[in-house]
């Protein structure tokens, strides 16, 4: 990569390209960009650029290439796998200012948006047409469509609606060489290789997404939300299995375990859940009016048959929101327990959930960690959450050890190491648990076709020792940083 002495000319060049107020280079400005949602991985960018148009992105990319400096696309920085870190002294290209909804075509059920549009804002904007954008990550109030595309984000409702990849029809992409291409089409049936499919979920390594065409879905006629209260998490998992086996496809099935319930109930997110319950299972069904009522009754009966103490049916929107508050407030509530939260993300075949959960809790206990679970049970997508303090090097080491053990356990059960947060820097060295070297080489071929010089977001996704990031917080001076 370019020698540091080039820096002044690169930065001057960037200021020329986008204007001085859209280039951040001062230490205190860059500090914000040292990490994404995975706080214990960090790297200081050389500069941060905030383009407003595709044209500006192109010019920024060309400037970086000219100076042989890598660049990293970034949205809102809510990623949980270290995907938006600028390794190797790279430049961050933050797309948050490209936040316009360019076009909504209600009759054809699609919208064209810039990558910085916040996920929840899109659904709000199309509500008037009776439509919504289905993928709903729990971070949807903050995360951007560009980040969603890069991570192939999921959310509570992917059980029925699928992840981001099922809803992206076309993309405009600035290739790592600065050329602009349009992939896919608003009808979703292009001939040729499915490049949209290949780019979604590629974690910002194949180029910078500057426009996204997404499919919109009609708002369901009716939604029923049920809250099953279970004596333990294992019976809640069994209920999930029984419901799916019966051929029902609920819109969402989310489990919140006892440890999380306790934290939520002691916080501002309190939802009136019984703190002596072993777990609660939120079950949401949506669709045509006539079908949903029957499905809700069947779901309720199955949950009771699998040992639920009680199944409440939301009587109105307010109560429905209360049920969801327990789920959606979980991350916030964890903030009370410790300064940092490590959110693991792995997937197992659904029927393995009961045994895996027991084993996951045992791993946390063995390492003396505060581990709790809130997860997308219908998809078999676990989120063991570990509350910790990154300033405690020993605790951090135990968190990382426990995290690795959990991943290994899930892979042995037939699962994978990420269901929605991606690999980033966090899990790149665990890719070998799932894939052989040949499998990884096949992925690298795709990378090489888009980015032969590996300039776009290097050091992510693939196992590597070439780029090292600093995982020891003391070495970066975090122990001196106030936690507020």
């Amino acid at each position, binding site marked *: 990569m370019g020698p540091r002495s080039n820096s002044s000319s690169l930065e001057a060049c960037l200021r020329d390209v986008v204007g001085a107020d859209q280039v951040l280079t001062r230490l205190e400005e860059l500090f914000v960009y040292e990490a994404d949602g995975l706080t214990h991985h960090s790297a200081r960018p050389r500069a941060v650029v905030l383009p407003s148009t595709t044209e500006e992105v192109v010019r920024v990319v060309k400037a970086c290439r000219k100076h042989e400096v890598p660049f990293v696309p970034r949205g809102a920085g809510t990623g949980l796998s270290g995907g938006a870190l600028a390794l190797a002294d790279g430049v961050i290209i933050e797309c948050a200012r490209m936040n316009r909804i360019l076009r909504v075509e209600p009759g054809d059920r699609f919208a064209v948006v810039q990558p910085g549009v916040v996920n929840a804002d899109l659904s709000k904007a199309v509500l008037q047409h009776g439509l919504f954008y289905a993928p709903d990550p729990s971070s949807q109030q903050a995360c951007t469509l560009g980040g969603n595309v890069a991570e192939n984000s999921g959310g509570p409702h992917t059980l029925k609606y699928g*992840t981001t990849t099922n809803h992206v029809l076309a993309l405009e992409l600035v290739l790592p060489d600065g050329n602009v291409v349009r992939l896919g089409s608003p*009808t979703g049936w292009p001939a040729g290789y499915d490049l949209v499919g290949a780019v979604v979920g590629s974690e910002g390594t194949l180029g910078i997404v500057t426009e996204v065409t997404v499919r919109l879905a*009609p708002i369901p006629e009716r939604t029923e939300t049920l809250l099953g209260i279970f004596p333990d998490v294992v019976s809640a998992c069994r209920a999930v299995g029984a419901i799916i086996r019966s051929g029902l496809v609920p819109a969402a099935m989310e489990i919140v375990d006892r440890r999380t319930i306790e934290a939520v109930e002691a916080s501002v997110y309190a939802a009136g859940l019984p703190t002596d319950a072993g777990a609660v299972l939120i079950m949401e069904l949506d669709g045509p009016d006539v079908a949903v009522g029957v499905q809700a009754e069947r779901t309720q009966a199955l949950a009771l048959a699998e040992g639920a103490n009680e199944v409440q049916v939301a009587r109105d929107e307010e109560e429905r929101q209360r049920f969801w508050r327990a789920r959606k407030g979980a991350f916030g509530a964890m903030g009370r327990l410790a300064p940092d939260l490590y959110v693991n993300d792995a997937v197992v075949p659904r029927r393995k959930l009961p045994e895996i959960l027991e084993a996951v809790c045992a791993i946390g206990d063995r390492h003396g960690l505060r581990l709790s679970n809130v997860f997308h049970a219908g998809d*078999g997508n676990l989120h063991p959450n570990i509350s910790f303090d990154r300033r405690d090097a020993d605790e951090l080491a135990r968190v990382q050890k426990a995290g690795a053990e959990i991943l290994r356990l899930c892979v042995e059960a037939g699962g994978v190491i990420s269901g929605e947060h991606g690999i980033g820097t966090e899990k790149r060295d665990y890719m070998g648990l799932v894939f052989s070297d040949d499998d990884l080489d*096949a992925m690298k071929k*795709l990378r090489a076709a888009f980015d032969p010089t590996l300039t776009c977001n290097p050091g992510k996704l693939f196992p590597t020792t070439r780029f090292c990031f600093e995982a020891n917080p003391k070495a970066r001076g975090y122990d001196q940083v106030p936690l507020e």
Partner: protein
Amino acid sequence: MSVLAALRRELGEDRVGSSPGLDGRVFPRSGEELATALRLLAAGEASAIVRGSGSWDALGHPMPRARILLETTGLLGEVEVDAEDGVAHLPAGALVFSLSEHVRKETGGAWELPFDPVSPSSTLGGCLATASPGFCFGHPRDVVLGLEIVLATGERVRCGGRVVKNVTGYDLAKLYLGSLGTLGVIEAAWIRLLPAPEKTGCWWVPAADPSLAVEPARLPSARAAAWLSAGLARELSKPGPGMLLELAGDAAAVAADAEHLVCQNGATASDPTGLGVVRGMRGGDPGGRVRVSARPSQLAESVAGLSRAGAEILAHPARGLFWAFSADEAVFAAAERAGEGFLVEAAPLAIRESRELFGENPELRPLQAAIKAQYDPAGILNPGRFAGRI
């Protein structure tokens, strides 16, 4: 030593044979044998036509450079149906019809395999490699969880997996699906099954133009919807253009949608055997057929234009797709302008030789070619068949 001799030596006499017009034919019976075959082909720079059961041999550009037929129907490895999770691991060489039957039996009728190919001889690998939309089920990309592939260089690789949600690494399955076997040969796949519907019903909805069929085709339980121009409707003994529509799902939802169809759209109950006739329309030998993707709001105009040019039309109104049946170059040229993308699925040889059959964006050629060069550096898999003749 010739490639054929090497294949005979490594795989055995019974795996290698002759094929009219080509140097020979190889018939691997396992992933290992397939890997060996591809390694030998690559080493000898011998190009191959990859073929399942050959029901769609005529798809794509002709391949004068191909020397060997590589048949995949011997790839009949492990079958696993997980009724609890609603997923199945299925071998690429198996016939979709028998796999569907197997899934139905293994799951006690609870789940179904989401493929409905036209030909009883279609292999799973062929359906995945063409990624052609079915009548009842949409794009295979939504149901493929993982693939096992042998690359052109002979490496056996995997992508995805058996779980229903997965962002571990690049989603290479999307790249391989619909790539017509130009990047690798599919050995097996993990497929997400769909719950079998409680009830199905078949309806005829008269509609003079396809845009009138969009609303009923979007009903929640509408699973298969095909609008037919007058000439095709006659094959179902229907008096004029209209839509054959299958409702499937919860009994209550099907009943409610059926009532809506009758009251709002003047639908009449129809004989379900019509579904088979419509499915067959895409499989016969029409002389020529082009697939056009058009937005629902463009349908009426696009279809009218091609009808005027003399084509009969079959449309999936809600999916934004239609097919124009004609062997006339003028129709293909009109199709190119009619929507947002096209694929000439069948055409007289002269046309297949002379015109671009895949309506992909020409600005993507360098990228498509770079991908092909990465995965098949020697250009041995279906050389020249795909978009841009790569």
